[in-house]
């Protein structure tokens, strides 16, 4: 295992962090019923007897949720096994049956690991399926649970499939926690299991955190922090909590195992005045659901179909473009960009150019990518690689190729972006420069500043057809020719 420099909560201390990441699976319907698994619907409209826990209703497992769980398990190198649902019994008004159907001692995915961009490997303990709860809205008392006068419930989210991915306590500082969540998120998106939208709550993180003096082997009492709704909250909450714990130890106070909530507004973690009731969840096998035993053939099919994971893409990039900056690399390996980049490399486009066009032009166009397929993207870049189009032309062409499905050569003609002809460019430059006799003389005398002005004039007239670099090149060549003939 690689090591890296970590930042402790205080001099001589280190963090011990394990994360529980709950991801909503991107199924069409909920885990146990045919209600739509949709975000942002009108309250209490995606509900039925099953997800409202009406008397007599029964759950039936969604095959697609199993499929997604298997894909994530494979991506995390977990063991995929026959699993059994259990009931986790506790009363809470957002949970319609007052028990949660979850996987307990036999989760569908056991073990596994995740390699961070830093090279560090974080252990995965399990990734299991469970149902989400409804949403509570607190009224009065500034909408806070502890001061609310009453609460309202929307059960649309009730029964939405969740995959809970539990890491080993291998994470050693808040930045690494962020790196872990970011990496896990991109894996979840890559295998198609999640849309990864933290802001919509489709990825939620609980952190188990303790601190210990550097060099101490055992684990100290841990605190679970809930309500971490963004990467920023995650980092800040861990930093706050680590320091809080160090201070408690410094003051000789006892650490209590408890659940705390991150209060974003006040930037503190706080314990809720929850009644001290031992977590006696009375798990027992869910009698309404037979075990799920994934077919080994299905698992092998899914393994074969597994998309390239971020770590694989990083490894590939390290070979073809070893000097790429971290930012550029992470942009290029993103799911939306990657197929374009790979297509470009496969077509022998210069890797640096492919990366630059992906990171700059393509990223800006992704929201409205329309009919710009990887093949068309590659076609455009190939023209640039062969020197037939300049950078500014490529930019225009790519933008148009999103909305206009005309074949690339015809599109170039249609836009008047004639492929580069050095002679033609020189005549354009000569034509534009001709009225500026004084400026031309100053240029020939070596005034480099005036060159910019002249190129600007060319671009004003022929910018759609030629690139600035080409215009400058033509200007240089015309200048050289003029000086030569004057000699």
């Amino acid at each position, binding site marked *: 295992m690689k090591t890296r420099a970590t930042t402790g909560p205080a001099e001589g201390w280190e963090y011990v962090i394990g994360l529980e990441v709950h991801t909503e699976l991107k199924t069409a319907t909920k885990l146990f019923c045919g209600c739509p698994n949709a975000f942002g619907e009108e309250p209490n409209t995606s509900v039925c*007897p099953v997800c*409202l*826990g*009406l*008397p*007599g*209703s*029964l*759950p*039936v*497992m969604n095959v697609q949720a199993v499929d997604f769980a298997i894909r994530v398990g494979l991506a995390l190198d977990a063991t995929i096994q026959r699993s059994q649902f259990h*009931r986790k*019994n506790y*009363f809470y*008004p957002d949970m*319609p*049956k*007052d*028990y949660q159907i979850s996987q307990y001692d036999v989760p569908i995915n056991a073990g596994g690991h995740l390699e961070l961009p830093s090279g560090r490997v974080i252990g995965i303990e399990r990734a299991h399926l469970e149902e989400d709860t409804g949403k509570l809205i607190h009224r009065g008392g500034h909408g806070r649970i502890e001061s609310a006068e009453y*609460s309202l*419930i929307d059960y649309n989210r009730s029964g939405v499939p969740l995959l809970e991915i539990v890491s080993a306590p291998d994470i050693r500082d808040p930045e690494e926690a962020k790196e872990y969540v970011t990496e896990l998120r991109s894996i979840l998106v890559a295998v198609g299991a999640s849309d990864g939208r933290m802001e919509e709550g489709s990825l939620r993180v609980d952190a188990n955190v303790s601190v210990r003096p550097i060099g101490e082997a055992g684990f100290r009492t841990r605190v679970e922090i809930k309500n971490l709704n963004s990467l920023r909250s995650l980092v800040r909450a861990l930093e706050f909590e680590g320091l809080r714990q160090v201070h408690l130890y410094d003051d000789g106070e006892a650490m209590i195992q408890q659940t705390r909530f991150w209060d974003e507004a006040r930037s503190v973690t706080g314990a809720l005045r929850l*009644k001290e009731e*031992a977590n*006696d969840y*009375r*798990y*027992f096998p869910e*009698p*309404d*659901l*037979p075990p799920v035993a994934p077919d080994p053939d299905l698992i092998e099919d899914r393994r074969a179909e597994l998309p390239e994971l971020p770590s694989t893409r990083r490894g590939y990039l390290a070979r073809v473009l070893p000097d790429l900056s971290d930012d550029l690399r992470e942009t290029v390996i993103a799911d939306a960009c990657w197929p374009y980049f790979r297509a470009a490399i496969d077509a022998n486009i210069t890797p640096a150019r492919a990366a630059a066009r992906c990171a700059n032009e393509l990223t800006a166009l992704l929201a409205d990518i329309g009919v710009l397929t990887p093949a068309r993207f590659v076609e455009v870049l190939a023209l640039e690689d062969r020197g037939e189009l300049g950078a500014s032309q490529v930019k225009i062409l790519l933008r148009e190729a999103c909305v206009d499905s005309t074949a690339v050569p015809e599109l170039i003609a249609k836009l008047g972006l004639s492929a580069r002809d050095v002679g033609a460019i020189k005549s354009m430059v000569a034509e534009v420069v001709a009225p500026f006799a004084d400026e031309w003389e100053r240029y020939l005398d070596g005034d480099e500043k005036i060159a910019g002005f002249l190129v600007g004039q060319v671009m004003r007239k022929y910018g759609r057809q030629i690139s600035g670099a080409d215009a400058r090149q033509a200007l240089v060549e015309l200048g050289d020719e003029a000086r030569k003939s004057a000699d």
Partner: protein
Amino acid sequence: MNDEILDWGIAELARRLESREVTTVEVIDAYQEQIAIQEPEVDAFLSLDLEAARRRAIDQDDRRSRGETLGGLAGVPIALKDNLCTTAFPTTAASKILEGWTPPYNATVVDRILAQDGIVVGKTNLDEFAMGSSTENSAYKVTKNPYDLERVPGGSSGGSAAAVASRMALVGLGSDTGGSIRQPASLTGVVGFKPTYGRVSRYGLLAFASSLDQIGPLTASVEDAALVAEAIMGHDPRDATSLQEAAPSLVRPLTEGVRGIRVGIVTNLVDTATPQVQASVLRAAEVLTQSGASVAEISLDELAFGLAAYYVVAPAEASSNLARYDGVRYGLREAGSTVEEMMIATRTKGFGPEVKRRIMLGTYALSAGYYDAFYVTAQRVRTLVRTAFSRAYEAFDLLLCPTSPTTAFRIGERSSDPVEMYRSDVCTIPSNLSGDPAISIPAGVDADGLPIGVQLLGPALSERLLFRAAYAVERGLR
């Protein structure tokens, strides 16, 4: 005429309706009259809607006169246990916690009954959430045994049993978690059938103990039970524990007889019964022998542990199944200043003493530190019971034993002693633990004129043979 109508079984009723000897409206009117006489005495129903039944009858007569072919249960007045969801009636499970609640959907069995043109006349009384063996645990009323109004009809499907026994309905549907169809059938002199676990969809049955519950018919005859069973069995995609197997044909093979069938009398279960009940079991054995079956004795001592295991598994599952009655989404709500106080007030007010007792027992059995000693041990007993049955079914095709150790007891006689009450189920519980089918058949009356039932047990999916034997016993004892 009316009295004659009440005597007809499903097949005969169908014949007479088809030949226009009688109209569906006349049938419903006959039952309405009988209900008017019997119900004030028997108290079998929690809700009745004879006007709706009559409208349905008029519609069926219309359809028939237009030459339409009607379903297999056309014109059959049916009483549903009030733990089956119905959009046309409130569904309370005889609990205050669901008073006035009308489900927005029908149980799968209800849809199937309606698809076959069955006519639901009302919903019947039960022990609250089917927890009991006497129907005394209803929050609304105590149903009486039509044979002796001082006595219980058994339970928990006591309302359906009493309704069929007093001819207020031709068919009753019940649910059986530890004997709740068979024991009341036995105590009221009707046929009660618990199918193999998974044969009948549980969708829309208010769950008591999910790994034990099965819905089944209570009828006047074995043939009627077979007809109803055929209509309600078969896979339902809404119940993940419903079997993929198609519903077996049960009516046609009824007359095939039992020649060559091996039947084992379970002696240790016979021993639990009163001498008169024991005598009925022996008479049934004799009938089977005379019909060509070979009958021998077998002792299955392991079944004795079933009672203990049942009183762990059923309450454990119930404690979880009944958690949802919390005052948030439907049913009763009592005021409380916090959600927790509201839930406690609601549940404390809404549940009766026996339901609370079982919730407490189940919560205890599942709680930290006791799970292995109770729940896991009870699960091992289930394997033990199943192993005992497997051993028996190596030597026998079917088993014979009493349904209930006693005939109907007096109202109030056992209600103060839950353990004594629980022992009523000792002969019926093993089939629920193993998931196997069983049927109770009337087998005469005791010295007080109270009905006695005998029980035939078979291995999983053996319904065809089970019904053939039940039919033979019924004919032989008649």
